[in-house]
């Protein structure tokens, strides 16, 4: 069925609806987390949160999302502020930190460079100036670039609900494409990232056709902890864009832990990652191609990992 044509809704060449004028909705600027939660409760699942808007406004233009209201949380002070060290052992990233801030943060560049790199690869300068790290996670695109490196680093997130604040490991946060534990009633709080010990390496590799404004065909984040040339003490392998959610591959991690990080262990881990991937065929690549890319990206990242 072709979408009905009207001055504000036209079919694009690929058959998608595109709305030059957004459908009407109410706009509320929240000042506190409590206010945002109360507004979400009032609309009972029919309101979306608005931060940078670079995802939700696009989805509304594509008519994939028809919220009755947008609750703007950009000016909620408790969700913003600087990226900072907490207690010397972890970094707290406010959900409203813009991707440009993550990419240029001196603290992250020094302590968690993989996060700054992942952010700098995303979208365009204009989008990075506006989009927030919290939005990238809360929108839960299977290809969201911040998720795999954060999960690989063992990050957790604060989740605000009307009952209080909970801390959720990021690898339990995603439920499906566009779905998280937030539902449409909770608000994402700070992202907490433990500082890796000496001798730990985290690497994020993504495969795209173009270097700019592209979405990952497949991506891989690895985290490897070892002392000197000793055996691998801990490993985390996380895949992006090849499953409904960012996918942690424990079989691949087990293939590495206790191993020496040599070619055999790397082959076992990259094979386990390719086996675990559950990619779809789409315009960016076939499922088989994506699985093969996963194998190659995991192998290359692991070959790079030892210092």
């Amino acid at each position: 069925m072709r979408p009905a044509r009207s001055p504000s809704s036209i079919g694009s060449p690929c058959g998608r609806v595109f709305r030059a004028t957004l459908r009407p909705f109410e706009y509320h600027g929240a000042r506190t987390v409590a206010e945002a939660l109360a507004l979400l409760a009032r609309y009972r699942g029919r309101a979306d949160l608005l931060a940078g808007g670079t995802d939700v406004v696009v989805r509304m233009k594509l008519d994939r999302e028809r919220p009755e209201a947008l609750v703007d949380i950009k000016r909620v002070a408790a969700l913003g502020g600087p990226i900072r060290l907490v207690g010397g052992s972890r970094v707290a990233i406010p959900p409203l930190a813009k991707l440009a801030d993550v990419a240029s943060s001196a603290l992250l560049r020094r302590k968690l460079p993989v996060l700054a790199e992942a952010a700098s690869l995303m979208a365009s300068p204009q989008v990075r100036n506006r989009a927030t790290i919290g939005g990238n996670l809360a929108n839960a695109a299977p290809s969201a670039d911040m998720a795999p490196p954060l999960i690989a680093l063992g990050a957790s997130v604060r989740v605000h609900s009307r009952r209080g604040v909970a801390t959720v490991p990021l690898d339990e946060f995603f439920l499906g494409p566009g779905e998280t534990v937030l539902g449409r009633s909770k608000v994402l709080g700070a992202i907490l990232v433990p500082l890796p010990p000496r001798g730990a390496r985290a690497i994020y590799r993504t495969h795209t056709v173009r270097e700019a404004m592209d979405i990952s065909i497949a991506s891989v984040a690895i985290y490897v902890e070892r002392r000197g040339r000793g055996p691998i003490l801990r490993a985390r392998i996380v895949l992006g864009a090849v499953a409904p959610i960012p996918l942690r591959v424990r079989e691949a991690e087990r293939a590495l832990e206790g191993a020496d990080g040599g070619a055999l262990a790397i082959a076992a881990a990259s094979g386990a990652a390719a086996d675990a991937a559950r990619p779809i065929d789409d315009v960016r690549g076939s499922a088989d191609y994506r699985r093969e890319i996963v194998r190659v990206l995991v192998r290359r990242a692991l070959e790079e990992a030892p210092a």
Partner: protein
Amino acid sequence: MRRADGERRAARVPAERPVTLIVNGVRRLVHAPPNRTLLDVLRDTLGLTGTNRGCNQGDCGACTVLLDGASVNACLVLAVDADGSDVTTIEGLAERGELHPLQRAFVDEGAVQCGYCTPGMIVQAVDLLRRNPEPDEQAIRIGIEGNLCRCTGYAKIVKAIAAAARGMKAGTARPGPGRKPATTTTGRKK
């Protein structure tokens, strides 16, 4: 005056809200319903049509403006969300009849074909040079990765931005809007 699309929700069209913007240094009060973008307001309400509407979904960069000094896609910013902000469009770059050094360089280098991407390219280049006054070619290319030129005239655009950066560094001009009057950069090349 664009009706909120006459469809099923026409019965409860959200009210217009007052939105105050400082556009190119001038305070403007407009009224916009929540579903209008900053791009709609700039072009259709304020008549500032230098900011172009391209893809209208944040991919092409034709609508790039500076919002509180940082480049954004105006098509993705709700007008109500920009309330109280400072907006600089292509129209705000020249000062006292003198082109901004980036505008001058685009002219001098012939970095214009059909011209549709040009305002967005130049505004984005202002953001780039503010963050990195001495970009190498790679940094310039990354700086304009969100601006598409369908004529594919990137080579001269990159040259123009590099030339403007050199001119601005040489002190013949200042980066960014709202500073002291820009003077022309180097002599005209052919």
